[in-house]
């Protein structure tokens, strides 16, 4: 059903918190997502012309890199981009078949591949580029928040998390319930000033991006008063009478 579930206070909103301060752009989230999902809920994620020019495939997670600011004062920021599991996503409401849906129980936005006609309208409606067409099967695919991991009783409890989160070597990805203000992820967003992407479009993204932290400044100032060796006749004499014991 492509009508959005009614939002009630305290409703579960599963999503990701992505730390732009520690992401080094290693692509682990992208490829681990790809391998999990290739054989997972949405698999396969086909790759066309895999060994020729024009190789391209279906990926749920793509890592951009940007430079913000100029010259030495600027920063390089690696920027993973995937479905934000918005609270009010048009990608769901525009779907003519009911294939695209937002789950009332956890807020995950999914596509039912058996219903999808592959019209592509949901991709047009998504400002974030979260949806990727499987042109081989003719259906739209997207991040499932690893729905076949997070509730999977065949997986040890500690690992019931999205593949991208578990694999991230710099812990730049966090998963949890952003509808619960006391959850670890909600606190992280509050503490670090997590930001939604393009809030002006009004989709209310659930995923949040933690901004690069202000660079800590060096406490110490060079002590200019210390004489330079040229000023001291024999600077080595300073150490002459130091009594050193082991």
């Amino acid at each position, binding site marked *: 059903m492509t009508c959005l579930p009614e939002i009630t206070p305290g409703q579960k909103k599963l999503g990701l918190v992505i730390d732009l301060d520690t992401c080094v752009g290693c692509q682990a989230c992208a490829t681990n997502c790809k391998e999990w999902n290739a054989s997972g809920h949405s698999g396969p994620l086909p790759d066309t012309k895999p060994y020729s020019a*024009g190789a391209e495939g279906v990926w749920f997670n*793509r890592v951009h890199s940007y430079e*913000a600011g100029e010259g030495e004062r600027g920063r390089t920021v690696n920027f993973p981009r995937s479905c934000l599991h918005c609270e009010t996503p048009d990608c769901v409401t525009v*779907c003519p078949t009911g294939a695209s849906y937002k789950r009332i129980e956890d807020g995950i936005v999914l596509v039912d591949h058996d*219903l999808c006609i592959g019209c592509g309208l949901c991709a047009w409606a998504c400002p974030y*580029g979260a949806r990727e067409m499987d042109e081989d099967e003719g259906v739209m695919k997207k991040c499932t928040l690893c729905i076949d991991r997070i509730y999977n009783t065949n997986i040890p409890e500690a690992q019931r998390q999205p593949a991208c989160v578990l694999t991230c070597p710099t812990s730049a990805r966090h998963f949890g319930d952003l509808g619960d203000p006391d959850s670890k992820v909600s606190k992280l967003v509050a503490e670090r000033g997590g930001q939604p*992407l393009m809030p002006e479009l009004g989709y209310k993204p659930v995923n949040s991006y933690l901004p690069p932290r202000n660079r800590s400044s060096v406490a110490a100032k060079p002590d200019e008063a210390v004489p330079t060796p040229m000023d001291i006749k024999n600077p080595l004499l300073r150490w002459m009478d130091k009594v050193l014991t082991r």
Partner: protein
Amino acid sequence: MNPAPSIVFFTTASGAGYGLLFWLGLLRPLGLVPGQGLVALALALVLITAGLLSSTLHLGNPQRAWRAVSQWRSSWLSREGVAAILTYIPALLLGLALWVDAPALALIAGLLAAAGAVATVYCTGMIYASLKPIRQWHHPLVVPGYLALSAFSGAVLLAMLAAFAGGGAVPALLAVLTGAAALLLKRAYWQAIDSGPPIATIESATTLGFIGKVRQLDPPHTEQNYLLREMGFRIARKHAAKLRLIAQGAGFALPVLLALLAVLVGGTPAVLALTLGAVLAIGGLLIERWLMFAEATHTVMLYYRG
């Protein structure tokens, strides 16, 4: 946005078909269209059906297209499908009425068909107008534009057919009026999107504006992807300006002038003028519709190009 030929053809053809159906349903029962009207109705239905079939060409799973009518409560695409299917009923009844010459049924069916045509084209327009990430489509003039262009192209076709049937200045005058209106609307639209502010920036898309100007260092992949092919279409400003001129001249101004000429001279020259006008209008509208896609920009490209 990528101007996929199937979609360009679909919206142009079905738009013209619904325009034709609209005018036929409205005018034929009033006797303002010469001849029986069955040919016009057939043409309208052929255009509509061809357009709808063409639209399924861009579907990944056309055999499931029937599912598309299920979500009319939220989806304009679904509503369009429902409206399109429902409109077939009065349209076919109108055909029956014209065939058996049942004026009362023709009147009712005609009005219902006209209403259905308006509803369907409105839905088509709303599919585009409801897409917030595409600034050029999420605009108040988009739906009026779709309606006006549909009315204009329908009128042009009806005028041509009427001329073949030996007269009918009303459709030609309607073509003049709707053409002029559509041209003004389209010019206003172009002016608006040319000067409109962006809905978002690379800074808001990345949240990094607080640091300074944001530039892409590297794309996520050095190779292509679906989104880039679908939404990364770019057209040079100069090229677009030239196409706009052609669309205005061939698609609007010339057909309007030819329709005026036809009203003034009548007879065989009118038939020729209106036929030429119809061909030009449809051609011009294909260009206009192609531009509608080519000039549209999607916010996702902020992540790739800033």
